[in-house]
């Protein structure tokens, strides 16, 4: 894992913990992420060849801010209640656009891009479902932010233990 993908992944950690207290909010945020990222990708692909390298970052920031703001207002129109739950995480999508652009996400193969988006979505919705189930099952902690962190940590530990070859063999 190189440095830029660390930045990219740690940016995804914020919505992954903050917006997964129910699977509906998680799914909504992921859909918003996909819409904004796609529009940003199309926009930047058109603009990039027409810009000198030093202007690309500015253009990217402007485009990401515009798209995210419009998407946020649209989300408010659609459901104000939902937006109040995920508002700050929806705003982070702009930053994710710029960072993804910076790490060369939009130049990578379509399959890799789909894989990353799909993985992000599956993680968001999966974690949302799991937290909601555990929360409804009586462990209220799971729906709070610290509970989300602990759950994600346990999941990662389980994944590591399962996928890593047993040292005694």
């Amino acid at each position, binding site marked *: 894992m190189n440095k830029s993908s660390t930045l990219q992944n740690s940016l995804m950690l914020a919505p992954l913990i903050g917006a997964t207290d129910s699977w509906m909010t998680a799914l909504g945020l992921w859909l918003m992420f996909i819409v904004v990222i796609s529009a940003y990708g199309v926009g930047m692909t058109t*603009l990039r*060849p*027409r*810009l*000198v390298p*030093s*202007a690309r970052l*500015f*253009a990217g920031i*402007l*485009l990401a*801010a*515009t798209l995210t*703001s*419009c998407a946020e*207002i*649209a989300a*408010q*129109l659609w459901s*104000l*209640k939902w937006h109040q739950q995920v508002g700050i995480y929806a705003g982070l999508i702009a930053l994710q656009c710029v960072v993804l652009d910076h790490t060369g996400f939009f130049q990578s193969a379509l399959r890799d891009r789909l894989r990353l988006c799909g993985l992000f979505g599956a993680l968001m919705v999966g974690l949302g479902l799991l937290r909601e189930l555990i929360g409804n099952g009586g462990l209220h902690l799971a729906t709070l932010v610290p509970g989300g962190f602990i759950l994600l940590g346990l999941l990662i530990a389980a994944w590591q233990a399962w996928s890593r070859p047993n040292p005694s063999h």
Partner: protein
Amino acid sequence: MSRASSVVIVVLLAGLGIGATYLVQQSSAPRIASEQRLLDSRNLLDLLPADSYDNQPLEQPLRLDDAVLTNSTLQSAYLATKAGQPSVVLLRSQVLGYAGSIDVLIAIGANGTLVGVKTLRQSETPGLGARIADWPNAWLNAFAGKSRSEPADNGWALKKDQGQFDQIAGATITSRAVINAIHDALRYFDEHRQQLVGNSPHE
């Protein structure tokens, strides 16, 4: 591609971005604001069962005469109706607590029984009296179904004061203030029933 054309594109993009965001924001602001009002009133009115009213109670204020009561002051009153019939009267009451005034919303059914009580504003001691603001609130829930005559006047007090209600642990003054405010409101409703809900169907 040249430096100049890049600058032009970035400036254009900035203008477009600001313009588009401004337009979208302007065109959707009224709808978002009305949605926000609806959400606010629903939050405020969640002490009422959702099927007990079908109007916008906050847009139907009632006139209050002699709103200064024995222990508390009524600030405003609203009428919730269902199918045109008065169902619940909401009284916003202010009473002096331990650390300052406490605002409570008291919902009284058209038949005179208490539907619910909710704390709107308080500055009581955190961890003690401030628990009056918890929602849902088991202590405040215990008053639902009571009325001016059930219990009788001397029952409307803390057990410590020979009444019949428990207090919030460690918050005698807060509890006493809220009980008095509820009792005042029920008494006011009883004395002004005609003016608040017209003729009750139970009479």
